[in-house]
């Protein structure tokens, strides 16, 4: 089985992310499934960045520690990763910057000779990598023409020089033709939202969802989409609710710190029954923490955020296909049931690049807004059997559409009467049941290889793919609830049935999903935690699984 891992390292500003991505595209052209992890600190230039680009025959979404190729644009790239090398590691380095073993490439000299700007150093290295791994130059050419269309010619000249500067070392065989589109988790979320009918996106920049803002801001050229970046997250949330009230399917994006500021508006959405989707990308906390690293510490927070009780949808996609599918669903269901929804992601998913399996993204049926006939006077909160009132937007002839953060009556007028408060609370509870009915009709709990296994890993969000890979090595199954609220208790119980040992794998301390399972009477005995902001590598999780008694 082919399974290749390329580490590309350099300083921030060297374009390491792009370099890793070009390599992923080379693999893509060679027929491989790919995944790219991008590790960078919170700074703009300098420091140490690296990508790990992997290629394999089957679907992957986790990095490996073992490094087959190292492309070093800085000394740190060699020095900091030594423990990942073996004698088989092919090392290519920029001989102007690195004292290395392996093959040096005089990047600066090449650029100078061609009067090319420093950013083109990447193409030089990519060319060299292609040569050393036996990737034909025409593959490089295809990738550069597609990915750097604006400056393809010059980059190709540079790449060719890099190609010629080294010798073939370790061949990567072609295993097929072009595989898949390569997308980041952020892009998959954005596309899923667009698929679901997104009209507006409002966000204040915050890692790891800033790139979703950037992606959608660009997409606004091609889609009928309004993208706004307001003064802060409070404004984001309230502006979004204004857009929703006036009929636009709207989402917002942030990370934990920004989400804190949105919680008051989140409760407003819940109480006044205004649909909204929050893309909540987790990173390492508490507080500012490690802004560019990952974590899974906000499950409890998003489940309980906001004062008062109200139904909410929380989905935590584990791979780009789920990100696409469930983002679309989240938007659709938020609107159908008039509830706030959270797409709970994390830095690993948001900023990882994956081969997207287009067949697996659905597309889910975009069932339209529930359009109960309006008979008689329109009342924004009319009490219905399923708790869902007809949703209309101004201007609506002969009607005043009144939404209200106070306890209110069917017309949306403030009430303080105990009876009406109870009726409206019960109405929202029925909406919860309606929402539960919607999710029960979907496969909310994914399981992989559980039929024969006596042990399964329980996970949520981006740890899915590392769990799948590590579990296979141990003959374990994997169970992943994608929907976390309403909690798919029955589906989870039926999936778990017959698997006596459950090990939760989460990037937090105690296992937040694990505790949630306990709440629902589902015991989860062991927990594997990760708390340093780095995602599990396959080898690391593999070893940790070996330690579980």
């Amino acid at each position, binding site marked *: 089985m082919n399974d290749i891992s390329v580490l590309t390292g350099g300083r921030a500003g060297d374009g390491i992310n792009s370099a890793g991505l070009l390599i992923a595209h080379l693999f893509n052209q060679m027929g491989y499934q790919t995944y790219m992890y991008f590790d960078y600190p919170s700074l703009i230039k300098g420091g140490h960045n690296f990508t790990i680009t992997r290629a394999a025959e089957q679907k992957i979404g986790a990095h490996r520690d073992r490094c087959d190729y190292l492309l070093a644009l800085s000394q740190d790239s060699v020095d900091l990763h030594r423990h990942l090398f073996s004698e088989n590691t092919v090392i290519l380095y920029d001989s102007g910057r690195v004292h290395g073993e392996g093959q040096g490439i005089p990047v600066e000299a090449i650029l100078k000779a061609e009067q090319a700007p420093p950013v083109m150093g990447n193409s030089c290295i990519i060319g060299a990598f292609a040569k050393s791994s036996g990737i034909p130059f025409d593959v490089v050419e295809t990738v550069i023409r597609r990915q750097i269309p604006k400056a393809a010619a010059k980059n190709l000249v540079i790449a060719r020089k890099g190609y010629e500067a080294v010798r073939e070392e370790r061949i990567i065989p072609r295993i097929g033709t072009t595989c898949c589109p390569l997308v980041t988790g952020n892009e998959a979320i954005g596309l899923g939202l667009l698929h679901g009918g997104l009209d507006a996106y409002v966000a204040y920049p915050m890692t790891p969802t800033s790139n979703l803002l950037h992606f959608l801001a660009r997409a606004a050229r091609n889609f009928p989409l309004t993208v706004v970046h307001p003064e802060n997250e409070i404004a984001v949330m*309230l502006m979004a609710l*204004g857009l929703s*009230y006036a009929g636009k399917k709207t989402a917002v994006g942030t990370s934990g710190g920004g989400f804190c500021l949105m919680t008051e508006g989140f409760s407003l959405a819940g109480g006044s029954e205004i649909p909204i989707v929050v893309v909540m990308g987790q990173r390492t906390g508490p507080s500012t923490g490690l802004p560019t690293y990952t974590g899974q510490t906000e499950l409890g927070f998003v489940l309980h955020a906001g004062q008062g009780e109200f139904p909410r949808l929380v989905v935590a996609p584990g791979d780009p296909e789920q990100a696409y599918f469930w983002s679309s669903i989240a938007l659709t269901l938020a609107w159908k049931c008039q509830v706030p929804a959270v797409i709970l992601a994390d830095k690993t998913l948001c900023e990882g690049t994956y081969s997207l399996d287009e067949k697996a993204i659905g597309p889910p049926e975009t069932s339209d807004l529930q359009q109960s006939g309006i008979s008689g006077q329109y009342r924004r909160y009319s009490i219905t059997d399923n708790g869902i009132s007809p949703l209309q937007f101004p201007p609506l002839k002969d009607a005043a559409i009144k939404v209200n953060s106070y306890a209110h009556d069917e*017309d949306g007028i403030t009430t303080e009467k105990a009876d009406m408060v109870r009726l409206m609370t019960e109405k929202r509870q029925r909406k919860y049941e309606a929402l539960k009915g919607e999710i029960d009709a979907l496969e909310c709990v994914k399981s992989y290889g559980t039929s024969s296994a006596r042990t399964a890993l329980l996970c949520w969000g981006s740890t899915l793919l590392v769990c799948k890979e590590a579990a296979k090595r141990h003959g374990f199954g994997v169970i992943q609830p994608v929907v976390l609220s309403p909690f798919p208790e029955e589906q989870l119980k039926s999936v778990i049935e017959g698997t006596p040992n459950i090990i939760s794998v989460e990037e937090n301390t105690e296992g937040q999903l694990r505790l949630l399972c306990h709440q629902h009477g589902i015991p989860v005995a062991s927990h594997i935690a990760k708390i340093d902001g780095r995602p599990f590598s396959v080898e690391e999780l593999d070893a940790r699984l070996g330690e579980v008694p």
Partner: protein
Amino acid sequence: MPEKNLITGAQNTWCPGCGNFTLQFALRNAIKGLIADGVPLENIVLVTGIGCHAKMGDYLDINSFYSIHGRTIPVATGIKLANPDLTVLCCAGDGDAYAEGLDHLIFGAKRNTDITVIVHNNRVYGLTTGQYTPTSPLGFRGKSTPQGAPEEPFNPLILMLASGAGFVARSTSRKMPHLSGIIGQALRHKGFSYVDVLQICATYFNVSELYDRQGYELSDHDPSDFSAACAKAEEWDYNSDAPIAFGLFYQEEKTSFEERFSRHPASPGSRNEQIRAFLEMKR
């Protein structure tokens, strides 16, 4: 359409003598004026904060978004962006707009969103029973400052002028026709319009006497003259005993925020085609 009185059946719970009554009727009149001009009633949306002022959302029989404390302006901005055909106005409190959510007020002016913000400036937190606000005088003895407020007020007109507001006016609940007139003008102004209404709080800050004594209506004032507007606005600092001008201080037409959001060209294909095209590029 049958002449509607625009008042809901909700029980009114303002204190006797509260300036909000005047505001309610002034607003109703201004809205009737709009309707007479041909604005469909259903195209008007009121956004309120939380506080005594905000009960306007319950009392006026028009579209309303009774939001949360301090947040009228972003909500109104979202509504206007969603549908520029709507006439969107905010009833905010001074606690609301000058304390809890001051930043939004300044950004409303900066962006020149075409909304109207009416601040029920009673210079006190009414609904939470009488604490000082950013426009209470220095030394105000409210419940949170029994020894006197330790801060001088700011002058919200000056702040709005400094923020780029294209319509800056002041009126008072003591002058119903003036108030109706100013609100009507504000609603008609294209772009961000702001009206500071010196509203009497009968219970916690009844300075009717001051406003009656010192208040006068602007005349011979050119609202297109920014410096003159600043000078007039500086006349009274919300603290001392000085003449208090009511009227339109400043007006300027500028491109609005919504206009700068280019309407999208009819896209060449459906959403799904666009998505497919994007994915194709990523292959």
